[in-house]
């Protein structure tokens, strides 16, 4: 194995949010008087791996996979009509499978190796040079996790993000063109976005290479677990897709009620549970920061579920199950970028606000504008993601109990000086860049595929259902 023991220093995760006090409690160097090691070599870094962190990374990766399958698949599947149930399950299942292959072949390298500010290189394509003893950085000086654990964890994010998109044009898309779109979109949009937001040299190296980071990381944009990279990114791609593909046949003229809200509830609940891996796992270390993200995720979601139910009680006189679980998902989306930065009480407020705004979008704005975003990918993921991304700039402020940010350009790292107005402005810039990049490239891809292979099945196929026509089977044979 000796030949493979290359140090992978060009690896990172989200912008760190651990309070400076935490830094002094966890790392190995705290036990010695010498202080942290600047730019440790390969063998030194391997000794800085903690088994607890490694376990948490692996468990979190499995939890996030559970969010996609079966969580998201059932959440979406329950909302479509019986004749299209399997098409949604199959789309999600195959997107997860294809995305994981794309991730290990070139995705990880494009996202998490040093390149330019926009995209990484191909030095780790096909996981070249990665071995059981190579490491990935965390948010603490001299704390590392095995690179395979980091690859697996980030792989599940690359799996779920394109799967989120399919909800926007569910019940009316051809299967193979969709998968081709997913491979292209991951390569041109997702991997660069992940690189721009999450790639940086790492806490032991950034001080010596302050420009070795993605564009948005360099701006100082805060995105703990993927508000921009995952939710806004997928949400705007979904909106563009549903506009280009067009409305479902019979939209607004025939009833299209969900075929099984039971499954939708099971799926939403699995999403909630899995999201602890998504958000608390994004801390990369099993410590107080992860626990904070866990609690914030819990309470923001609960607040958003309550808010949606209360709003429905007032507006429609009946609180619906679909409303309750939709609120929960809106809360999960909104807390994602803020999970490690907010305090529990500000997370609750964020959950309330996100739920109310998403409710307004899916019930009022969508009807006013008349677009057929089948499962409200835009209304929940993009809108909730935008609320969360901008609000992160507010709730991260230490004066509101937030965690602020860590300045890694000093070594050892220190707490940064927080300026809320400037941070909110940076957050808005990050949101706009995501909307423009993902929206624009998605439009080009959708139009290109529409003109060549076609995106939409024949009318007879759509009316009879995708399950029997595209997949040759039915979900329910009574």
């Amino acid at each position: 194995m000796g030949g493979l023991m290359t140090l992978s220093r060009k690896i990172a995760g989200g912008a760190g949010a651990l309070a400076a006090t935490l830094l002094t409690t966890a790392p190995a160097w705290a036990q010695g008087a010498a202080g942290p090691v600047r730019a440790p070599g390969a063998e030194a870094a391997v000794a800085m791996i903690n088994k607890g962190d490694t376990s948490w990374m692996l468990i979190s990766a499995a939890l996030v996979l559970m969010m996609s399958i079966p969580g998201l698949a059932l959440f979406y599947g329950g909302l479509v009509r019986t004749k299209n149930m399997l098409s949604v399950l199959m789309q999600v299942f195959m997107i997860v499978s294809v995305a994981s292959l794309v991730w290990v072949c070139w995705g990880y390298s494009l996202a998490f190796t040093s390149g330019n500010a926009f995209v990484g290189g191909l030095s780790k394509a096909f996981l070249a040079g990665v071995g059981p003893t190579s490491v990935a950085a965390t948010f603490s000086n001299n704390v590392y996790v095995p690179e395979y654990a980091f690859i697996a964890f980030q792989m599940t994010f690359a799996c779920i993000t394109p799967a989120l998109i399919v909800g926007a044009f569910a019940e009316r898309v051809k299967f193979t063109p969709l998968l081709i779109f997913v491979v292209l979109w991951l390569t041109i949009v997702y991997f660069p976005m992940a690189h721009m937001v999450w790639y940086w040299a790492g806490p032991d190296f950034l001080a010596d290479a302050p420009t070795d980071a993605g564009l948005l990381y360099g701006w100082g944009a805060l995105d703990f677990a993927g508000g921009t990279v995952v939710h806004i990114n997928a949400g705007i791609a979904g909106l563009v897709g549903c506009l280009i593909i067009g409305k479902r046949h019979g939209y607004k003229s025939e009833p299209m009620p969900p075929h099984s809200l039971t499954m939708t509830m099971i799926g939403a609940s699995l999403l909630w549970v899995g999201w602890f891996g998504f958000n608390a796992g994004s801390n990369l270390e099993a410590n107080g920061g992860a626990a904070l993200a866990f609690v914030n995720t819990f309470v923001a979601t609960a607040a958003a579920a309550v808010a949606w139910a209360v709003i429905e009680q007032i507006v429609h006189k009946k609180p619906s199950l679909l409303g309750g679980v939709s609120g929960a998902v809106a809360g999960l989306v909104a807390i994602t970028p803020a999970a490690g930065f907010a305090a529990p009480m500000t997370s609750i407020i964020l959950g309330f606000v996100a739920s109310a705004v998403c409710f307004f979008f899916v019930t009022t704005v969508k009807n006013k504008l008349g677009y057929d975003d089948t499962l409200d990918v835009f209304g929940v993921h993009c809108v909730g993601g935008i609320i969360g991304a901008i609000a992160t700039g507010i709730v991260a402020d230490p004066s509101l109990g937030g965690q602020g940010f860590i300045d890694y350009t000093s070594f050892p790292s220190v707490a940064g000086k927080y300026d809320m107005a400037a941070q909110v402005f940076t957050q808005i810039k990050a949101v706009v860049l995501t909307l423009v990049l993902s929206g624009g490239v998605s439009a080009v891809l959708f139009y290109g595929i529409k003109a060549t292979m076609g995106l939409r099945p024949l009318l007879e196929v759509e009316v009879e259902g995708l399950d029997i026509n595209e997949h040759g089977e039915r979900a329910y044979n009574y």
Partner: protein
Amino acid sequence: MKLVIAIIKPFKLDEVREALTTVGVAGMTVSEVKGFGRQKGQTEIYRGAEYSTNMVPKIKIEVVCASDIADRVVEAIQAAANTGAIGDGKIFVLDVGQAVRIRTGETDDTAL
């Protein structure tokens, strides 16, 4: 012989079945149906998309009985299925020309 068709509220099925047994009815056919009469349908709302369903779920009972007990069958159903509210349902009585028990070939009243 008479065919008695009753459309009733679903939750009244057990009471109707018991009442029919006490007047000597030995069998019946039950189906889940949808329809509308004076009772209004319901409104369903899914994330703001409103669907008003005009059709209300009901149970349809079909009983074939000897002509001489048809009145008592109708009375039994009417009494058991009654709640006094709109939507309790309706009863129809039709003449039946012939009945055959498939297993034995018995016909008419003996086949019931």
